[in-house]
């Protein structure tokens, strides 16, 4: 932790991570980069690595990057905090959320 560089950065746009990548599964094929109609992602300069989320706040949460990903589990959808749906079990009343 202490070894990390600390940069002076502007605030991160919100929401910042519409999807997350599992680096163990993602092959860096960039199918999501090409599928996304918005250009939320750019290819990672390191070939074979997950794309970089560049325009996070422009995402319209269509989910096509995740749906069309050829490697299940490589690219995962993140609900923005204010939009997370809630439900409760009809029998027990237990409340859950995504």
């Amino acid at each position: 932790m202490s070894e990390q560089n600390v940069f002076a950065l502007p605030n991160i746009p919100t929401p910042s991570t519409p999807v997350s990548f599992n680096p163990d599964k993602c092959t860096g094929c960039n199918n999501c980069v090409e599928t996304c109609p918005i250009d939320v992602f750019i290819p990672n300069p390191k070939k074979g690595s997950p794309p970089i989320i560049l325009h996070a706040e422009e995402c319209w949460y269509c989910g096509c990057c995740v749906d069309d990903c050829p490697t299940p589990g490589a690219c995962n959808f993140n609900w923005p905090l204010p939009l997370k749906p809630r439900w409760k079990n009809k029998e027990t009343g237990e409340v859950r959320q995504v």
Partner: protein
Amino acid sequence: MATWHEYLRDEGRPPAWPYQIQFGQEQLIETDVLVIGGGISGCWAAIAAARQGVRVALVEKGDVKRSGSGGPGCDHWCNAPANPLSRVDPDEWAVHMADRTYCNGIGLQIQNREDFDTLLEMEQMGGKIRDTEDEFLGAEGRDDETKFMISPRYGTIHSYLPDPHMGEPGFNPPEKRNNVVIRVWGNTFKPVLKKECKRLGVQVFDRVMGTSLLNENGKQGARVIGATGLNGRTGEFLIFRAKAVILATAGAGSMWLMSMEHGGYSNMHSRNINGDGSVMAWKAGAELTMMESTGVVGIATGLKHKWYTGAGDASYENVPLVDAKGRRLPYPIQGWEDAGAMVPAPGTQEKVREAIMRGEYELPFYGDWPAMAEVERRATWNLMLTEESTTRIMIKTMNEAGFDINKDLQLSYKFIEGNSLPQWGSGGSGGLVVDWNLKTTVDGLYAVGTQMFCPEDHSYAAATGRYGGRKAAASVKDAGEFELNRDQIEAEKKRIFAPTGRDRGIEWKELHNGLSRAMQYFVSEYKTETLLKMGLEEIERLEAEAVPQLIAHDPHKLMRSIEDLSMMEYAKVIIHASLARKSSNPRMGFNRIDYPEYNQEEWEKFLTIKLVDDKVETGYLPPRYWGDMKQQYEAYNKDYTGVYAPGN
């Protein structure tokens, strides 16, 4: 590492722009038919034109594979009265649907006549339109012979024209259903449309936004002979020379939205729609109408919940609603009980509100999925909501998180989120005036889908796109000789690339916010001449003071910057049209405080607006300027050959 910030932390520097920068470099493309916008209507237009044997180029801001509001899917093919199970006559149904003051009778007639053919062609290409795996045997509306899933929610009175008894139990028995709407697996559609474009040799230009139309001799109002485009990854400047141009973009989605942090998830339509096509046509001299109408984004604001609400919460789809104590609420459930009532019968909402205040119902409300019949529950969750659009990913992630339609009640946001705020406005039904060829008022220029005034749904976009593509292709043989005007191209190039030549200035988000404020204050539901003129002055001030400072460091930001300029122009058209309509009209979301009288007969007409020598001119069209819908359609389509025969 996933985000830009993480990359910076790990690498100590930001990533280089990954695409070759080509600001201002030119590429000239010669084609017969140019289609601008690669969503549903644009794809169908390109395919239909290519099937006529002409050269076609298709320009799309994203990637055609999943772009546009219909990119992720579509669950209802909405007006296919020519299907064999239909109980209504297509021509009569079209007239019935058009029996309201502000609608597009031309588009409706095309949709009603050709929608089923279009759907069958969708199936030819590989789109799934039937329950071939017998997943939903026994569901209401499923036909065992054709395996079509007819939507059971619609009666023989269209839901635009609600019957006072709509929503009452037993109101929509099977024999009174129209069988016009077919539930489909629309997530399969867009990729196969792109594949068909490629198979037919359509030149697809992904990541290119159209920026302007080119007129013969560079003169506003003269025949359209091409267009310019900007590549949002490279900054390349594309020049298209075409014998006919089809506009297939959409309206402006976020003019009233203050925070661009919510620009993406606050819109039920694609983030990429910013009125570019309408503004291009406007500057080229084409006539628009209905621009003074505005809607309110009541179902898609990031400060609320995400459209499509049926998935994110239980407030809109088939599921019955109960209160916190499990008492059933008197809301319709859009199905066999209530003849397609998408909203409660008049007065129901108020009765529920009063009952809440008296303590008879307890908030919050829930969607009672377990109360539904098993097959309907699955058909609603797994077909309707999974295929509808951006809902697909919601359903998937909710399932993964443990939501169980057989056991769980889903929270509804009714009442607890309050009412929509007026600043969450949206463009209304404004669009281009078209004739029975879907040609605009400028020669060489066609409009399809949402580019036309008073547009409808996904299947409307498909059917009108297919029709417009056919008509535009038929026109190219008469194009003759023409030359592009270099002065017009140079002027556009200067306009587009100006933000790249500055060291400091204002970025696109702030300019957008400036426009949003002008719209929120001066183009709200409270309109007066004074306020509207202040809005115009505010935008003109932004143009004079802020636009010359607009700065874009990369091609993507340049694209967003040019979108801002489109939206500012679009906003001005709205204001000019609003000034010209001196009467109020609730159906248009149009309230003039200084002209408060509603529904005056002399104002029951389309207000048209266009530029002539860069001066705004307004005019009028009668409410049903399209004439007899059946007769006109038949007169214009004597050569229509029906469903495409593959191999041709």
